[in-house]
């Protein structure tokens, strides 16, 4: 342990065009088959198209709460999750829809979550993509950032205690690295040699706060030195580089070599949530990232150069549109939660709480389908927004 952290800020792995063509032709150093490389495309495109659908539904006020968009970060989510196996568990962030899809979350579940349906994965109790399924291998985050690091340290501690060759992966943003939970969780995992990969998605902003106001480290992977664990920085907008860097950390963890940090460099091209107009981003930055460093455009160019015909990708796109249309219909057909369900399942025992006397009979007295105007919608932006 100790001293093995390597940060490669200037010399990020897998930058576009850096790999010799001969390597790429056979699936490259990543060792991915043609089928797998097309899967990466499918998951990234599904993420983007599903979020585009959600934006439309949001604008039609068919999404109950806020909307969180991972535009431009699809590669870091998909590539890192793709490095895991069945049986491994990850804990996503709000911009890791792609990671959850790779682990088996379905579009209809996502849509029902956003629409707060009674048969959504959380039965209308939690927002957006805050849900999980330990069988499929993802545990939903909570809003206080950094909290999932200690939790995933415990998940992976259980793998180690039971002698299971399973790995955990937890995502944090640049902002969460400032929290106490991040520090305590990663230090605990390091000391216990937990098979945990901590992926730091450095997307430039935590809500409106730029990275330079979070930390003075040049690269967040440098923090690994302080925990005596390996750290690596990779290009998060290159899905293959992301996959490769994460895979190295996952393999180390599976071999019993403990915890690692993988920092993925990317850029948040949308606001914190859909209501946020990003007035704090310097002019031209959003356009520059869209034009020069879009992860899907880059990957399409790479696949084309590797000989994947355009119509094959178009067929995938068409399949995705069909899937999303079907999922939207199914989500819209499902009902709202029954009010009394709000009182069940706080504990295993007792299984439910009694309604208070003024609610006995259980009839809903609030009109739950109305969206409070104070929430700040697309149609009524918060004061000061342009």
């Amino acid at each position, binding site marked *: 342990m100790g001293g093995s952290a390597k940060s490669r800020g200037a010399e990020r792995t897998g930058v576009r065009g850096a790999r010799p063509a001969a390597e790429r032709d056979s699936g490259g150093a990543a060792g991915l088959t043609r089928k797998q490389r097309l899967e990466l495309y499918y998951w990234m495109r599904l993420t983007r198209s599903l979020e585009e659908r959600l934006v439309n539904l949001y604008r039609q006020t068919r999404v109950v709460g806020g909307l969180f968009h991972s535009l431009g970060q699809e590669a870091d989510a998909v590539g890192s999750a793709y490095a895991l196996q069945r049986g491994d568990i990850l804990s996503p962030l709000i911009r890791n829809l792609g990671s959850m899809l790779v682990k088996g979350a379905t579009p209809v579940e996502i849509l029902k979550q956003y629409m707060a349906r009674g048969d959504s994965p*959380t039965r209308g*109790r*939690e927002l957006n993509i*805050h*849900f*999980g399924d*330990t069988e499929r291998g993802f*545990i*939903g985050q*909570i*809003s*206080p950032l950094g*909290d999932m*690091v*200690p*939790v*995933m*340290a*415990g*998940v*992976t*501690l*259980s*793998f180690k*205690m039971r002698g299971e060759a399973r790995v955990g992966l937890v995502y944090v943003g640049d902002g969460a690295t400032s929290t*106490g*939970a991040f520090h*305590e*969780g990663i*230090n*605990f995992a390091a*000391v*216990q040699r937990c098979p945990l990969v901590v992926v730091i998605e450095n997307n430039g902003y935590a809500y409106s706060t730029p990275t330079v106001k979070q930390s003075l480290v040049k690269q967040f992977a440098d923090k690994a030195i302080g925990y005596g664990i390996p750290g690596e920085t990779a290009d998060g907008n290159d899905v293959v580089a992301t996959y490769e860097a994460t895979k190295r950390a996952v393999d180390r963890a599976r071999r019993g070599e403990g915890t690692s940090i993988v920092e993925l460099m990317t850029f948040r091209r949308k606001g914190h949530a859909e209501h946020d107009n990003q007035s704090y981003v310097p002019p031209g930055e959003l356009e520059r990232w869209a034009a020069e460093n879009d992860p899907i455009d880059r990957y399409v160019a790479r696949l084309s150069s590797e000989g994947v015909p355009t119509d094959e990708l178009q067929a995938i796109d068409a399949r995705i549109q069909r899937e999303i249309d079907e999922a939207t219909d199914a989500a819209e057909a499902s009902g709202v939660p029954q009010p009394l369900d709000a009182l069940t*399942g*706080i*504990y*295993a*025992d*007792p299984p439910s709480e009694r309604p208070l006397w003024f609610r006995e009979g259980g009839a809903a007295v609030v009109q739950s389908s109305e969206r409070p105007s104070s929430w700040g919608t697309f149609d009524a932006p918060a004061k000061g927004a342009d």
Partner: protein
Amino acid sequence: MPEITYLEAIREALFEEMDRDPNVFMIGEDIGGFGGAFKVTEGLQAKFGDARVIDSPISEIGIVGAAAGAAHMGMRPVVEMQFIDFIANAYDMLTNYVATARYRAFLPTPMVVRGPSGGYVRGGPFHSQNPEAGFIHTPGLKVVYPSTAADAKGLMKAAIRDDDCVLFFEHKYLYRRIKGEMPSGDVVVPIGKARIAREGTDLSIITYAATVYKALEAAEQLEREDGLHVEVLDLRTLAPLDDDAIFATVKKTNRVLIVHEDTRTGGIAGELTARISESCFEWLDAPILRVTAHDVPLPYAPSLEDFVLPQTPDIVLAARRLAAY
């Protein structure tokens, strides 16, 4: 059966539960070879190994969070707070993460957070606290606070076997002062059930933890000097509260004094008072009175601590006022 201390009773429960269920493990600061600051976990690591009795970094967020993650995967962690005062460091993890996990994500989180609590020990502001009220307010957590050795053992077994998170407050003043005979066999004291510590007909004192003994002392004095028959109800579990037992004693004696060592404002006495007045107003012959700590951080000097915390003469005074009402 020989008598053992409250502390030994807790330790026995930990040994027996680790023997019974391989998923039970311990995690905490200095709990392994050292046996913990109060030696509650002494001998556990020697028997069960350092993989099941884990010496952790100083990291309350880390170990409570890790316990939650392991619990999701089917383990049954028991976390020690070296002093329960430090549970405040893990407040977010317990209230935002652990308490909501079953409700929002259908994730079982069977875990126990235990630790030495309470004053009367000259521990000063950070080794004497009773922070139970903050957690009772959080749906999704259970809170127990035993006063006898047998209850300490039986409730620890119940807490470890419970499918949700149980906060287990151990009163450090009672650790070595209180002894009791253990029932033979594997006896589990159910969570959510109060206990009548002393039968009476004239007045009820509702209390828990160390002040149970102050209440019993006061009751003896009141019987001797005033001829009053005082009932003492030991809550044992603070969340969920045993409404049936509380209302039954109120309806029996019609006069209620609530005693707790925690500070006054926002303490459990307020909640009990509200429940009693909502459900038993017609049975009350006098206003409900409280004897609690003063609303100050707990000071160190004996003369200060004794003034701030409830004492037996305070309980006698309040009971006499109630009886005379």
